[in-house]
């Protein structure tokens, strides 16, 4: 698998929310096998940065490049390699975990072994219940299962550890390191320790506003 060339890069980004400037002059890059953890106080623009980098929001100024090409011109390639889990889990409450995962897999055109993932995330027992009946932590696990099973190179996660128990966090850390060791890219916002091998991790500390 040739993954050496995967690369996400951003230059001189300025992020605004409404009429407030959250951050400006952000530069950075993420290459195969690397993780970037975005930290900072609440309201400093972590989620906005994450959403901007995957193309959901437009930056006020600056540009984002995937494989050296601006992302709005390279959307199909970026999206084919991207798995994103935001604050909202992206699960349909009326469908079961299995059905939600199957939907995601078919859209990706990919068959993954659901059982192994569900077992690892300890979701096997509730995999056939509508996700609206699951606990917040279980729903989070289901959303992460979608990312972990996506086969995508670039994982962009907004606070993946929210609502997870200690065992879940540890298990997720192992999967993160496995993903990175295969040449994957990982971008996440987190308040907790990221569980990622420090050699592979860069931390981006966003200053608080008015700091």
């Amino acid at each position, binding site marked *: 698998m040739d993954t050496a060339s995967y690369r996400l890069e951003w230059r001189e980004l300025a992020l605004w929310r409404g009429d407030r400037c959250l951050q400006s002059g952000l530069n950075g890059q993420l290459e195969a096998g690397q993780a970037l953890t975005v930290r900072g106080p609440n309201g400093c623009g972590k989620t906005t940065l994450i959403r901007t980098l*995957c*193309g*959901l*929001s*437009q930056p006020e100024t600056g540009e984002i490049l995937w494989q050296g090409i601006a992302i709005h011109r390279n959307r*199909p390639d970026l*999206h*084919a390699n*991207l798995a*994103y889990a*935001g*604050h*909202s*889990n*992206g*699960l*349909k*409450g*009326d*469908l079961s975990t299995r*059905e939600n995962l199957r*939907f*995601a897999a*078919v*859209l*990706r*055109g990919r068959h993954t072994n659901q059982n192994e993932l569900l077992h690892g995330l300890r979701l096997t027992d509730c995999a056939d219940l*509508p996700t609206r009946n699951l606990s917040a932590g279980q729903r989070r696990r289901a959303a992460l299962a979608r990312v972990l099973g996506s086969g995508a190179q670039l994982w962009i996660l907004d606070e993946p550890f929210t609502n997870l128990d200690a065992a879940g966090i540890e298990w997720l850390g192992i999967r993160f390191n496995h993903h990175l060791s295969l040449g994957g890219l990982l971008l996440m916002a987190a308040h907790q320790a990221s569980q990622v091998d420090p050699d592979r991790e860069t931390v981006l500390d966003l200053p608080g506003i008015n700091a």
Partner: protein
Amino acid sequence: MIRAFFMVMRRELTVAVRRWSDLVMPLVFFIIVCTLFPLAVGQDIEILNDIGPGAIWVAALLATLLSLNTLFRDDFEDGSLEQLVLDKEPLTFLLLAKTVAHWLVTGLPLVVLSPVLVLAFGMPVTAIPGVVLTLLAGTPALSLLGSVGAALTAGLRQASGLLALLLLPLTIPVLIFGARAADMAASGESIVGPLYMLGGISMLALTLTPFATAAAVRVSLD
């Protein structure tokens, strides 16, 4: 791409069936609005005959509007819409699949129910095929136009009023041709002309609105 299209449609239909109460509401609304006319206007069969086609069309329009509120709202709130935007398949197609599914669960049942209402208004049995055909040709345009408005207002609270203000002017041509054709069907005239026009509007909506819907969803999520 085709596979993704049908997968989105299948998911929408599954969700719709599991939330059947949401599904039934626009239909019940459609029937109730139609039954209000005889109560308000009186039992003069001549008058009911005259207003019947128009009343059925207005009720169909309002019922569609009622159902459009939730077209993207749920997906917006649970994050499914973000996932569709970030999918590798073109957003235009995925949202078109959602809209088609929406028509299948709201527009099509209206079409199926309409013969009952034709008879309730005391119109001749011979008017049934005409009214059914006009609704069949016109309601897709309502769903498609509606998807643009629903996408624009997905992220707003209290969006239903705004959605009505946005959409009702756009749907006027459909209403004019639909009600006129239904009226002509009731009086036994040929409805080919307005039917072509309705079909034309629906085809135009089918080719243009998916792009607008996709753009509107991106704006709503930004």
